[in-house]
């Protein structure tokens, strides 16, 4: 019988060592999962698609419910791996990162952080007050590059980064995200056909919904052929998320380059949280019709996107527009698998 305390920890952090151990101990095969676990797994995938966290709170003490939740995690990983979409992998990692962060920030003590750090193999030392110190390479391994978690905004001395409770929580969840992303897709041998079919259905439903939203806005541009970086930015924008100035610039120039009209681009940006019509029109005019050439600024290369921390997948191209154009060509004449096809 799995210890209740371990089960509760595993539900909070299913990717931890305890989580993995509990999943193994519960010993349920994919074919033997109940409806509750399947439903939760589907919810996990939907949240991943939207980049939102997933966590069922207030299940303390309810053994059966906890078990379903814990088991829904590996099932969700299989679903995500079957659907096989790079953007979904990133979304899944981010979703788990956000859920973990919330739990770590809300805990009253330090137990979760300390236990999770130990289970993830993250070396740290207590550092006076309620702080932690980790080595610079460990800090950098979380791959965080935004705002308050940039290395340049940390207190660094003798090769160690000093973090308060909040930043340590952010570091740990960042590492969670990196590890999850590295582990996807999972190997699919032995996964029953029924489970794969469930995944396909789930994936189609999600993509159909997304396509409907996109089509209403995009005109003749095909967002489903966007590279993962632009797909994410575009979806985030339409979903009302706030994009950084750099991200907006990169997205706007990309959209113009793939044929979206300035008016349509303006409409897409009307979904931004701090939207001001006049300012947006002015900025778009400058970006799309200004610059030295008077024909607007050119869209970012992959290298530029990487330096803006907007690249989220390995695509084997050097320019997002190249990715889009390749997709258009393949869509027009579906690729026949010839043995001597040169790689990109």
């Amino acid at each position, binding site marked *: 019988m799995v210890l209740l305390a371990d089960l509760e920890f595993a539900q909070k952090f299913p990717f931890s060592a305890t989580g993995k151990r509990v999943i193994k101990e519960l010993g349920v095969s994919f074919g033997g999962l109940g409806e509750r676990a399947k439903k939760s797994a589907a919810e996990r995938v939907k949240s991943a698609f939207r980049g939102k966290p997933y966590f069922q709170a207030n299940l303390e003490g309810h053994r059966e419910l906890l078990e379903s939740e814990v088991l829904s995690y590996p099932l969700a990983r299989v679903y995500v791996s079957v659907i096989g979409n790079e953007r979904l992998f990133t979304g899944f990692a981010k979703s788990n990162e956000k859920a973990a962060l919330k739990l770590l920030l809300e805990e009253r003590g330090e137990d979760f952080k300390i236990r999770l750090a130990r289970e993830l193999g993250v070396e740290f030392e207590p550092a006076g007050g309620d702080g932690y110190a980790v*080595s*610079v*390479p460990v800090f*950098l*391994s979380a*791959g965080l*590059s935004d*705002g*308050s978690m*940039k*290395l*340049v*905004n*940390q*207190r*660094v*001395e*003798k*090769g*160690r980064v*000093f973090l308060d409770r909040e930043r340590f929580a952010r570091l740990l969840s960042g590492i969670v995200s990196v590890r999850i992303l590295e582990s996807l897709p999972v190997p699919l041998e032995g996964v029953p056909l029924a489970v794969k079919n469930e995944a396909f259905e789930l994936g189609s439903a999600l993509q159909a919904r997304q396509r409907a939203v996109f089509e209403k806005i995009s005109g003749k541009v095909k967002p489903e052929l966007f590279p993962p970086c632009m797909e994410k930015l575009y979806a985030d924008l339409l979903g009302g998320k706030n994009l950084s100035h750099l991200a907006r610039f990169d997205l706007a120039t990309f959209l113009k380059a793939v044929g979206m009209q300035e008016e349509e681009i303006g409409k897409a940006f009307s979904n931004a949280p701090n939207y001001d019509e006049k300012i947006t029109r002015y900025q778009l005019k400058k970006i799309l019709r200004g610059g030295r050439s008077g024909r607007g600024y050119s869209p970012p290369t992959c290298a530029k996107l*990487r*330096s803006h*921390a907007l690249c989220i997948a390995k695509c*084997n191209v050097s320019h997002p527009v190249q990715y889009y154009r390749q997709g258009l060509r393949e869509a027009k004449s579906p690729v026949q698998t010839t043995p001597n096809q040169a790689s990109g």
Partner: protein
Amino acid sequence: MEEKERVFLAKNFKEYYEKHSLRGIPAIEQREFGVGDFGKKIVRRHMFFPGLKELNSFLKESVPPFISYSAAYYKRPSARPMSAKGFMGADLIYEFDADDIKTKCKEEHDSWKCKNPACGAEGKGSVQACPKCGSQVEVKQWFCSECLGAAKEQTFKLVEVLSSELGFEEGISVNFSGKAGFHVHIRSKKAISLSRSARNELIDYLTLNGFDLEAHGFGRAESSMLTCPVLRNAKGIEKRFMERLSSFIENWSAEKLAVHGNIKRARSSFLIKNRNIILEKMKEGILFPIPAEKPETSKKFWNLLIEEALREESIALSIDRQTSVDVHKILRLPGSLHGSTGLVAREVSLEELRAFDPFKDAVVFGSEPVRVFINKAPKFSLGGESFPAFKQTEQELPLNAAVYLVGMGRAVLR
């Protein structure tokens, strides 16, 4: 460059390589090499040498004016494209080029000329575009101990930050580029395995890109009090920064404070008189409001000083971002000769760096007399001798100076 000059340089370089074999290149068989010609530093890449013997034979036979090697380690260095090489990690490299650092001496020894034949304006220093007609300009650069001195200072600062703050004390070496700069090379296991995003973050740290004052504890407390990091607890950039800010209050005259902080002289005099209180408060994390002034004026004053502190070049280093993040870059091979100067790109230990003068310590050619015709060259010293500025004159120069001027395109053989 004409054939005669090419041959002259090649002959001398060949003699050098015949007498001096390169040594001490770690993991040579895992590096990609590239060679260049006069006018183009990289004409051929994807070269591979299984060992020092083969490398040295190549140098003696082909005598490339420029030879570089990769910071990266590859399983198959000669494979193409890049993705097929089997990347295994790369040294961490930072470059300081005298070209990129603003120094006063450039006004004296650099010159520009308008490319527009109808205009023909020229002048000293360098400009982005012709001030008379707006066309593109050709800039002729020169280097002296002052601009190289600036590159050296940045190198020291970088090594300091790398070791005392970032914890990369092991495996650091500094190499003179052979012309106008220094490369800092970090070769520890920790450095070699850094991911691209980690390298991005490191360069942001060094150049203060994305530095957020609020994230470091600068902000508004209550009323007109601004907060700042407490010096006692400050570490790293914060510490350097707060020390800088404190030094303004400690050392500046009332005049300077008034000008830089945009306040009345009477106010700054008051601040100077009460220096100690202000410094005490700063240590506690409070930026003292200027009495009898509006809160906005105080805030502006401190923000101006903070901006000033940020501009200080010991806080943010002037490292070229592009080259430092590119893990596939190739850089001058230490021990090789630089085709534009004839100087040797050599390793310089940290102890030697302070006194290192490339115009003395990187000179390899002797002083046998050579006749050259010099078009135009600013004054310079080489090999312990000083030379005045030359213009349209034939001279007999020591070999090392002749090689230098010919390589820099300022002279031809007679």
